[in-house]
């Protein structure tokens, strides 16, 4: 058995270096893209872009802001009952994940604009489950 260890280790090292290089390049580019995106959206809204349906502020940020308590922004045409239901759903999810009550707040309620309707999504999930 005659193994050329020199070239074997060359493959090992160049392989890992190239894989890391390629993926580090992607890390940097995606980070740059994320920065540009947040700059672009940051000009329009104040602060972070809100979640489409019922944005919940991060648990850590909430206590500082809770003193001010800004009014909830509600998109036109959404009734009080719907807001109550959404708030209840948020509360149920958050308590299931272990967040204490009062550590978060529903700041705004907007209609979600989804690329795929809920039924199409359900159909796709059913079709793709085996994979």
């Amino acid at each position, binding site marked *: 058995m005659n193994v050329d260890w020199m070239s074997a*280790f060359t*493959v090992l090292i160049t392989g890992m270096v190239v894989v890391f290089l390629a993926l580090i390049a*992607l890390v940097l580019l995606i980070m740059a893209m*994320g920065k540009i*995106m947040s700059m672009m*959206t940051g000009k329009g809204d104040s602060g972070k872009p809100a*979640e489409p349906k019922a944005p919940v502020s991060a648990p850590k940020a909430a206590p500082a802001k809770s003193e001010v308590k800004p009014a909830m922004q509600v998109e036109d045409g959404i009734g009080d009952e719907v807001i109550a239901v959404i708030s209840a759903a948020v509360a149920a999810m958050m308590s299931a994940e272990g967040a204490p009550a009062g550590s978060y707040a529903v700041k705004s309620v907007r209609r979600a604009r989804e690329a795929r309707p809920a039924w199409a999504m359900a159909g796709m999930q059913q079709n793709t489950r*085996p*994979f």
Partner: protein
Amino acid sequence: MFSTIINTIGEIIMGSGFCNLQWEQFVMILISMVLIYLAVAKGYEPLLLLPIAFGMLLANLPVAGLNSYNEGSLIYYLYQGVKLGIYPPLIFLGIGCMTDFGPLIANPKSFLLGAAAQGGIFLTFIGALALGFTPQEAGSIGIIGGADGPTAIFTTSILAPHLLGSIAVAAYSYMALVPIIQPPIMRALTTKKERSVVMGQLRQVSKLEKIVFPIMVTIVVSFLVPDSAALVGMLMLGNLFKESGAVDRLTKTAQNELMNIVTIFLGVSVGATATYDHFLTPSTLKIIALGLIAFCFGTACGVLFGKLMYIFSGGKVNPLIGSAGVSAVPMAARVSQKVGQKEVPTNYLLMHAMGPNVAGVIGSAVAAGVLINILG
């Protein structure tokens, strides 16, 4: 006249499989039955293992000659899609349609975990050389550690086509065994404190970012490693179909009908490369052993790099997500979730682990490109 009938019947009997069966073919048929059992009863990657196992059965039928090497047989023509490197990129197209790169875009650092877990490929390459394989064969065996069936088949079909059967069987069997192979390694390499890290919520990713991502990855990866352009390009085309939201019909076809058709062709023709003279060799046993080592090394490299990120991030990264860097989407991410949840039941690592998991797919495609470039 009577003697003619006897003669004809005699000829039919002599030409039948019963009289021409070699013991090796019998063993191969038994092996294929075990694999069919594993696919059907145990659910080991049945979508691919079942066609592969039946392809093995077909290839080892005496006299019929239904294998991938016999020019003129049905399977020979189907096999051309493997030989010419057509099926694996088409499978990647479908996978791209089903993959959400959101967690990776939200936390791009997980790319590094996807890269680290490819260490298993290159370490096993060295191991395979030491066991006496040629560099081309060793590269194909190492790629099993990428835990990515199409990538393994694509690389092997270029570097060492005679090993396709053994490598495909090893790759898909171990992918099915990820939930058994990974947890002990993950637990051995991490402390209870590390496993208990709860990671913060991922940021929301905009649609524009999701559309730019596949285009950017295709350009960057294909410029750097042109040999992986076929795999990465098709993966990203599928993803662009999905994220653009503009071509729902194409997305549906690529991820359902096209993918299923190609899966059948790929499975049967790869299985049919495993004729007894190619499969019943000592090298198959070595490949199966090395494949397991590749998986273990890949998992270990991912977890160790995760530990590194844990240290550098000041304890914010749970090292368990590192093991998901070996691809095997989404099984490996689910394993991270499960092991993490054993320590802290309310810990949801799944989305965090999906980042390295899909990065692993890109990482193993890049690693395959590097191996093809150097060894091809």
